[in-house]
Structures are given as C-alpha cells and as structure tokens.
C-alpha cells in the first residue's frame, strides 16, 4: 500500500452477550474519501461507528487510524469527531461557544481560537452567527454548527451518524449536496452511516452495504447499483422488481430461471436451485409491439394496469399472462409518455439486467 489509510478496520467484532452485533468487519478508507456504511436498522452500523469513535470497544480485531492502533485510546484522545444523529449541540452555549468547545479542550488560547471559529463559521455559511444561542437556529443551521464544531478541530476523520434523519425532505435533499460540497472543500475524510440508500449513493465515493453485522459488499455507488454481489445488496440498493423461482440451468447467455408463475426467463448470475431474481424498473424496455423488441431474450406482451405519474420517476404497473406484476420506468420523453391504464404494451429486458441469486440466506 503506497498511502497510509486514514482508517483501517481489521477483523473487528463486537459481541453483546453472544449476539455478534458486528462480525469480522474489515475495510480501509483512503484520505479524503467520502465513505458510507449503508444498512437497515439493527444491522450493526451504529455499533461499528461507536467503536470507531471510541464509545464501544471491539471484542476482537483492531481499529487503526493513520497507522496508529486505537485500542485503549479513549474517545477524547482520538483524532476522530462525530456528528451525532441528534446533533447533540450544547443548548446552554452560543454557536461560537459550541464551535470553540473542542478548541478550548485542546488547550488553544482564546486569542487563537477566536479567528479559527470565525473562519469556520464563514466557511459553513454561518458568518455572524457566533453569538446566537443554538436554540434559535433552524434545522439546517444546527446541522452546520454540528459539522463546524468537528471540522474546526481538523480531525483525521469525521463520523456522521445519520445526521439528516431529523430534517424534512426538502432540506434533506439540500443538505446532501451541501455535505458533499463541504467534504470536498475541507478534503476531510468522512465516514457516513445511514439507512437511506439515496443519501449513501448521492454523496459517497464508496459505500459498504451492511447486514446482520457483516459487510455484504463494498464498492462505488455505480458498482453496487449495477453489479450487486449478493441478493441482499440487489434488493436493498435502488428500486427493483423481485421475483422468486427456480434455476433451470446454464444457457448460451447466462442462466435460465423458471418463475413461480411458470414462465422461463434468461438471467445472469451463478445461482442454482431456489433463487430470487432482481430487475430494475428502468432496465425494462417498453414498446408498442413485441416485434420491436426482437433483440431482447426476454420479451412479453401485456397491458398497463396502473400509471404512477411522478414526473421523471413515473412508472407503469404492467400485467402479462403468466408473468408476476412488474413495475417499469416510463420515460417522459418517448412515444409512450401519454399511455393510459388498460392500453396494450410490450416489454422486454436483457439477460444481464435480470440478476439471479440463490435464495438461501436471504
């Protein structure tokens, strides 16, 4: 390795009385990277983050920050700062005092801390707010105070524990962009945990998908979306149609799977026996007649059951003989844009688009 990773976890396990909340997790985060850990609630991501911050101690394994083992180093000595889910701003202090708290703890004089506080507040867009009580800020402003409070200490690593969870949708969308811009501006390594796949995909350089205390897959948002390694990742990341069936054997292109509705499809993967197949709504090609889709190995004729209009994210629910209910993205620029429920429609998809995984362990 040419460059020392900002954060490396080596076989980290956390055992809570027989229950392994985190089970043998290893990964590295490069300097300046925005790394997300994505998983459903209870998957162990919070425990993992608390171990990195120093509030929990691993039962096994090591946590290394810039080449230094953090085992036995208390939370207040680690070059890691955390943005809490509740933000945990100190309500009895002003904005400036909140940001200055860490500097005072580090023994930095008031004379030196003052300009640093002003500079960081300017950078996060809170210039002139130093004397304001934190109780009189909006949700987005409080968010920025929580981040400024960490960044002013110039930590190696900033941990973010679902900090956008409490915000309303509009603000959350805005803060996603802002967080990514802040991270780029400061070039600080961010480790972000969330159960919201959109947050993880939009902001991160790399995402780890976590389930039952283990990492299912680590990769770029594109990799996770287009090439899920496991059934869980295929189902959890992005919107998808899920079918169950049985693998019938290898084919010229990929493998065959017979769905429970008794239709055989061409898919991709290396599964056998009982299996689950995943198909993204936008991977479904739509046409007026089946003959237009002759290039696709899977093609069917059906009728539009429902039109779910949502602007660019509009979808159709399609019913076809022997085929399970299917959702397909409806392009708003194409010839089918004005289609109504009840209209006949043809649909098809490549073998590559249908990801097949063995049903075991799902």
């Amino acid at each position, binding site marked *: 390795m040419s460059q020392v990773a900002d954060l490396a976890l080596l076989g980290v396990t956390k055992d809570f009385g027989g229950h392994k909340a985190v089970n043998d997790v290893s990964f590295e985060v490069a300097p300046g990277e925005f790394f997300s850990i994505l998983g459903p609630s209870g998957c162990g991501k919070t425990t993992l983050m608390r171990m990195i911050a120093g*509030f929990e101690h691993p039962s096994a394994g090591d946590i290394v920050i810039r080449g230094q083992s953090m085992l036995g180093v208390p939370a207040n000595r680690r070059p890691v*700062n955390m943005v809490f889910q509740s933000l945990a701003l100190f309500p009895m202090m002003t904005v400036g005092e909140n940001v200055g708290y860490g500097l005072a703890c580090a023994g930095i004089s008031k004379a030196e801390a003052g300009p640093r506080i002003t500079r960081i507040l300017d950078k996060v867009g809170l210039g002139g707010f130093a004397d304001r009580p934190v109780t009189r800020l909006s949700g987005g402003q409080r968010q920025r105070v929580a981040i400024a409070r960490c960044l002013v200490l110039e930590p190696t690593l900033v941990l973010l524990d679902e900090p956008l969870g409490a915000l309303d949708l509009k603000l959350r969308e805005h803060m996603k962009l802002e967080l990514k811009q802040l991270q780029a501006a400061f070039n600080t390594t961010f480790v972000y945990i969330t159960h919201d796949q959109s947050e993880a995909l939009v902001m991160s350089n790399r995402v780890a998908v976590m389930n039952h205390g283990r990492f299912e897959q680590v990769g770029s948002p594109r990799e996770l979306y287009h090439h899920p390694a496991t059934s869980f990742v295929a189902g959890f990341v992005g919107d998808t149609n899920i079918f169950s069936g049985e693998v019938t054997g290898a084919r010229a292109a990929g493998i065959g799977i017979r769905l429970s509705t008794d239709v055989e499809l061409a898919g991709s993967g290396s599964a056998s026996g009982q299996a689950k197949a995943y198909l993204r709504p936008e991977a479904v090609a739509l046409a007026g007649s089946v003959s237009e889709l002759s290039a696709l190995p899977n093609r069917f004729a059906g009728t539009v059951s429902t039109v779910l209009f949502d602007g660019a994210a509009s979808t159709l629910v399609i019913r076809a003989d022997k085929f399970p209910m299917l959702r397909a993205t409806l392009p708003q620029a194409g010839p089918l844009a004005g289609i109504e429920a009840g209209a006949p429609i043809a649909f098809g998809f490549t073998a590559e688009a249908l990801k097949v995984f063995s049903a075991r362990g799902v």
Partner: protein
Amino acid sequence: MGRRLALFLLLAPAVLWIGLLVILPHVEIAILSFSQRVAARVYTFGFANYLEFLAEPVYWRTFARTALLSILVTLITLVISFPVALYIAKFARGKSKPVLFLLCLIPFWASELVRTLGWMMLLRETGILSHFLQAIGVIGRPVEFLYNDGALVLGLVYGGMLFMIVPLTNALESLETAQIEAGYDLGGSHLTVLRRIIIPHAMPGIVAGSIVVFMLTVGNFVTPVMLGGKNGLWFTEQIYSQFITRFNWPQGSAFGFMLLLLSTVIVWIGLRLTGQGFSETLRRS
C-alpha cells in the same frame, strides 16, 4: 355570575390554605414581634425584641452559626448527592434504576426522630462505632462521637440527601446522553464535561435541591437537639425556648421573623450567584 362562582370555588382551597396557614400566622407573628411589654399584660408597639436580639451575643451568634452551618450542610449534601444522582440518572440501566431510587427513599419511611435515634445508637460512647474502633485497636477506650458539630452536620446531611437527589436526578435525566458523548468526542476531559456540560444542564436541579435542603436544615429542630452539643445551639432551639420555656411569645416571634428573613436572603443570594430565576427554578424542578 355562575362562572365567577365556579372560579371562586376552584380557588377557595388554595386561598384558604395560603390565607389561614401561611399569611395569617405570619401576620400574627409580625404584629406580635413588634409588641413590647411595658407592664404586666400591657404591650405597646416597639422594636425591643429585635434590639434584644442584637444586644445579646448568644442570640446572634447562634443565628450566624445556624446560617453558616446550614450553608455548609447544603454544600456537603450537594457534593455527596451529585454523583449518586448522576449515576441513577445516566449510568444505572434497566431495573437497577428504580431499585437505587427506592434505596434512597427507604430511610424516609421512618420518622426523622427514629432516624436520628439510629445515628445516636451508632455514635454514642457505648455505640457501634466506638465498639468497632476499640475492637480493631484504633482507640483505647470508649469515645463519645455524639454532641458535637460533626455529628450534627452528619445528621443534617443525611436528612437532606433525598431532597437533593430527587431534583438532581430529575434534572440530569433530561440530559441527552449524546451530549455527554459529544463532550468527550470533541476532546473534553471528565472535568471539562462535568463543568461545561453536565453541571450547567443540572443547574436548575442543583438550585432547587439546594433551596429545599437549606430551608429544611435551617428550620430543623429534632436533629440539632438530639445530635448537637450543649454549647452549640441551633436557632430553632432559641425560638422554642422563647415560646415554650420562657413563654415570651413576642421575643420568639421576633426570632421566627429573623429566621424567615435569613432563609429569604440566603436563597436570594444563591439564586443571584447561580444566575437562576426563582420562577424558572420552580418550573424546572
């Protein structure tokens, strides 16, 4: 009309209670304290009772002693109760929380008199502490631990602890655990987190608990009589002796008023020093 009547009926218990039990006796005492005896059964208005208080050193010395010891007792109670409350509020998990709280409450099922008698059994010359220290050879002969200021402060702190722990626990329970963690995460030591995050948050509880403990201590009668020394009087004992022993009600009333004044002034100073408002404190506790 009907609404007015309803309002009157609703307020009546509170008005009667405050009027009959708080205001009326104090007005009576105030009037009494300003009456001086000029002849048998003849009284006129005057400040003689208050002048007597100032003229007689034993009175104002007892008064000052009561004030200082009460402040000391309040501070000691606070220092001992704070870690207990912090543990109950923030560190005890599951069932241990109500159990610990109950343990603090159990001694108060017995009356103050019985509790104080318990201390007497422990501390007297032939008591458990004396015997124990003799058995392990620390002291050669029986030692009397009672009837001194140490025993008095001990008894008063013991009596006040619950009234400090309850408001402190309430105040600390509302402190979000993430704030304590954030305090450490940003580099704070135990002392910094305590000083800048936990104590400021607990301030309303600290003030409320201190006011209650101080008032209970200043006005305590049983504990000083039983545990205190013969030459270390408590001011309530002076009031008692004026009313009951010497049957000098005007003098006793003046003392009573001085005690009320003392409580008020010290509570006011305490609130000013901690920057807490009285109504705010009452609301939060």
